[in-house]
């Protein structure tokens, strides 16, 4: 048995995982990163549009700060987010972006003077200040009050990931590529690392570590069509789930992005609409202002996706052999703008649709895009139930997105959560609490269990075809657990998935019997894991009898704060279970800085919680009193919901802005 010992095992080499790795290295701990693919090929590279951070450098970002970013994030989440976590996040996002600038990301910059821009289909002139010249600029994104999304053309994720991976090179972080974590090693509620499989040689390796971090990204590929990379299969969530001890949060919270191209589902960034692009129907009519007169194309993602679906259901979609779609028109932005700021989009249109988006409209429709749910953790990133297991990035639910995440908040979350979790892990490692003793015999047990599972798949005969099961699962998720959901379909989805789960125990890897690199074997065991993850999504959606953020029930159209202001927690304590165990975690209104309110889209259908009114009055009176006393925004915030003391010391400082200069010490 091959065993590798390290302080911190990090499963996942995307933005989140790499940021944890460099962070713990800096604090003097050893780290090994496992990744299915060379880290630079991780899904993070695909993020196009940008990263939110309230720098307030550009004219349209003036007046922006942590408070505005916080409010946008909470409203976006439909009050599902953990407000303290969202505070930690918005406070640290400017620090994270400045760090990335220092490490080489060529962020697009503010240029002084007048610029033409398109806002609400009108040409407008924006004037940038002299003193902002050369600072990081930002573009508009959906659901935000200010232009806050910083970018490098439309290759933001690529530039961030390259800078991060290069930093990891510099720091000599050990990276083991083409390795797949298969199971967590744990005993008595303590995580000791993971068993991993080398995807080239087939060898199983045990990694034993004091802290283990899952940063494996989302689970979009349980859907038939998704904007996600094909490796976003939820294997990380499955790792946690199959431990039987760790839990998952809000798995039913799935985001659909308004503009993926038809039929292949490749994304065109929200930057298209942020920069002034429009959505048109089959008559070339701009329909969004009819539904959302205020934010129009730039309403929150969940809202735009639903409005588009509604409009297509009214027969206004463009018919195609792949079903209905709508148009995204960016021709009005002009060729120069497209070739400079939206060139990835242009390449995608040319290569996958054979069209020139400066001349022609792009066929789009809402498509699975982001996983708000994930491994449930405390604000430190540590699992609530399995000690020594951490998670961050899209894989986790520490919960800053609630039921809908804002565009640009995700890559931002990866680096912020990465830098924070690295500190919390390092603190843990510096304490004697992290000491471990585990018998090699027990480590071996986990390796043997994995080996036995693989043997069974390879030796089975006359069993099920994994591809057939997987395609069926993907279809069920598409058709029954989609943008609009209802009790009847969801019940059928749960029943059918349960049936698939039972059948998946009898998968047979036929023909391709190699124990080394073997795509058929990989597909077989991942299908088993994916069905399990899909069940947590379907089950959570079926039980949640309300509509919140991206979770939209036709049979329960109102957001119900009285009954459902809580997080869904799923686990799988017994491997013989055919359905997940579901419990709930209450969200406490009295602890909120921003008590539940109306998001401002469509008609207000909220069923309010009886505690909301009181909480709001309390907040209002504290604010009024302190404002009268001349207190500043930091003091007022501190009084409403203190969070600084739970941040690592080095990240507690205030953020400098052009209008909020820090004293030079």
């Amino acid at each position: 048995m091959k065993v590798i010992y390290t302080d911190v095992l990090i499963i996942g080499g995307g933005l989140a995982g790499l940021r944890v790795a460099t962070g713990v290295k800096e604090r003097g701990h050893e780290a090994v990163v496992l990744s299915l693919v060379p880290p630079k090929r991780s899904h993070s590279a695909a993020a196009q549009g940008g990263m939110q951070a309230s720098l307030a450098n550009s004219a349209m970002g003036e007046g922006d700060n942590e408070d505005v970013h916080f409010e946008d994030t909470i409203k976006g989440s439909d009050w599902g987010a953990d407000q303290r976590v969202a505070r930690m996040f918005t406070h640290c996002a400017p620090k994270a972006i400045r760090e990335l600038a220092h490490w080489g990301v060529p962020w697009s910059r503010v240029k002084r003077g007048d610029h033409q821009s398109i806002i609400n289909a009108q040409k407008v002139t924006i004037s940038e200040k002299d003193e902002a010249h050369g600072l990081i600029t930002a573009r508009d994104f959906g659901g935000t009050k200010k232009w806050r999304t910083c970018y490098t053309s439309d290759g933001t994720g690529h530039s961030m990931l390259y800078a991060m991976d290069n930093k990891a090179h510099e720091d000599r972080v050990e990276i083991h590529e083409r390795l797949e974590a298969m199971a967590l090693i744990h005993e008595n509620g303590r995580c000791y690392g993971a068993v991993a499989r080398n995807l080239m040689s087939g060898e199983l390796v045990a990694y034993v570590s004091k802290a283990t971090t899952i940063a494996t990204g989302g689970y979009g590929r349980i859907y038939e069509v998704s904007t996600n990379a094909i490796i976003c299969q939820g294997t990380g969530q499955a790792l946690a789930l199959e431990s039987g001890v760790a839990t998952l949060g809000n798995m039913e919270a799935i985001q659909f992005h308004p503009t993926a191209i038809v039929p292949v589902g490749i994304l065109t960034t929200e930057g298209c609409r942020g920069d002034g692009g429009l959505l048109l129907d089959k008559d070339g009519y701009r329909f969004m202002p009819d539904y959302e007169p205020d934010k129009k194309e730039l309403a929150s993602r969940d809202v735009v996706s639903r409005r588009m679906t509604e409009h297509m259901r009214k027969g206004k979609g463009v018919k195609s052999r792949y079903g209905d779609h709508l148009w995204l028109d960016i021709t009005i932005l002009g060729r120069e703008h497209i070739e400079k700021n939206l060139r990835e989009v242009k390449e995608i249109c040319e290569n996958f649709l054979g069209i020139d988006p400066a001349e022609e409209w792009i066929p789009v429709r809402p498509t699975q895009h982001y996983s708000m749910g994930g491994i449930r953790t405390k604000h430190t990133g540590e699992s609530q139930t399995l000690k020594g297991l951490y998670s961050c990035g899209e894989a986790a639910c520490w919960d800053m997105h609630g039921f809908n995440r804002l565009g640009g908040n995700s890559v931002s979350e990866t680096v912020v959560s990465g830098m924070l979790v690295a500190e919390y892990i390092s603190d843990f490692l510096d304490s004697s609490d992290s000491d471990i003793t585990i018998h090699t015999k027990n480590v071996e047990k986990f390796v043997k269990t994995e080996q036995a599972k693989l043997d069974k798949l390879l030796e089975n005969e006359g069993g099920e075809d994994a591809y057939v099961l997987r395609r069926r699962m993907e279809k069920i998720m598409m058709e029954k657990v989609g943008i609009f959901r209802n009790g009847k379909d969801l019940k059928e989805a749960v029943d059918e998935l349960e049936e698939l789960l039972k059948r998946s125990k009898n998968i047979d890897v036929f023909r391709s019997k190699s124990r080394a690199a073997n795509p058929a074997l990989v597909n077989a065991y991942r299908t088993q894991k994916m069905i399990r993850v899909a069940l947590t999504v379907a089950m959570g959606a079926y039980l949640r009898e309300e509509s919140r953020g991206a979770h939209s029930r036709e049979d329960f159209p109102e957001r119900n704060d009285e009954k459902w202001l809580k997080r869904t927690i799923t686990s799988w304590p017994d491997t013989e279970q055919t359905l997940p165990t579901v419990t709930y975690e209450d969200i406490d209104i009295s602890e909120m800085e921003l008590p539940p309110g109306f998001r401002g889209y469509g008609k207000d259908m909220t069923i309010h919680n009886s505690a909301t009114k009181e909480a709001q009055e309390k907040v209002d009176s504290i604010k009024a009193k302190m404002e009268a006393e001349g207190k500043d925004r930091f003091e007022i915030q501190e009084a409403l919901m203190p969070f600084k003391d739970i941040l690592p010391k080095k990240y507690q400082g205030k953020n400098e802005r052009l209008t909020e200069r820090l004293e030079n010490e």
Partner: protein
Amino acid sequence: MSKDKAPRILKIDILRFDPHDPEDFPSMERFEIEESHGMTLFIALNDIREHHDNSLKYDFVCRAGICGSCSMLVNGRPTLACRTLTSKLDEHITLAPLPLFELIGDLSVYTGKWMRGLNEKLETWIHDKENELNVDKLEEKMEPELADEIYELDRCVECGCCVAGCGTIQMRPYFKGAVGLNKIARYHLDPRDKRSDEEYYELIGNEDGVFGCMTLLGCEDVCPKDLPLQSKIAYLRRMMLKTAVKN
């Protein structure tokens, strides 16, 4: 492919080989599949794996021409398979793994490992010892045009197409390739990287670097990101000559 015509039957010849299997030897295998509308090689190869031979190895990740995983020889030419529409190809297609890189099996090659080695050798990160970062403070300014120029070169996806298309590398296994030279050009342009011309010279002022390049430009022709490799290599060569003369 027009709507009315019967779909084409594609004849795809794939160079197969499993280096982990001592009994195996390289051979061409033909698969026939029906073309569908908007089919890319990503879709075609998945079709083959799912319906004809589930042991077929290849590497796709983003399937959107972004991550650089899927480079292979398509009819002899290095390119990203995921964004190659079959409609742009003849019905007879030949696929082979990218040469010069470690073969994992069939069309799957380990470009990532080669790139890692390259990055380590060239130290492709910002070198700045003096400047302690204070994350609370305003970021350092940069001219907007310069940021754009750096991004232009930062767009390389490490796909290895330029390496596979390079004549020099066949003779000089340690040649840094257009990908390496482009990276140096990128960091040299970046004022945040404080390395001196002499330090850069140490890295590429030799036959395995910029002086090994024969400017035949196989690289620029095949780069899927259309990087301006030719002008950057020419620029580096001039700069290196100047540095050599100075010392």
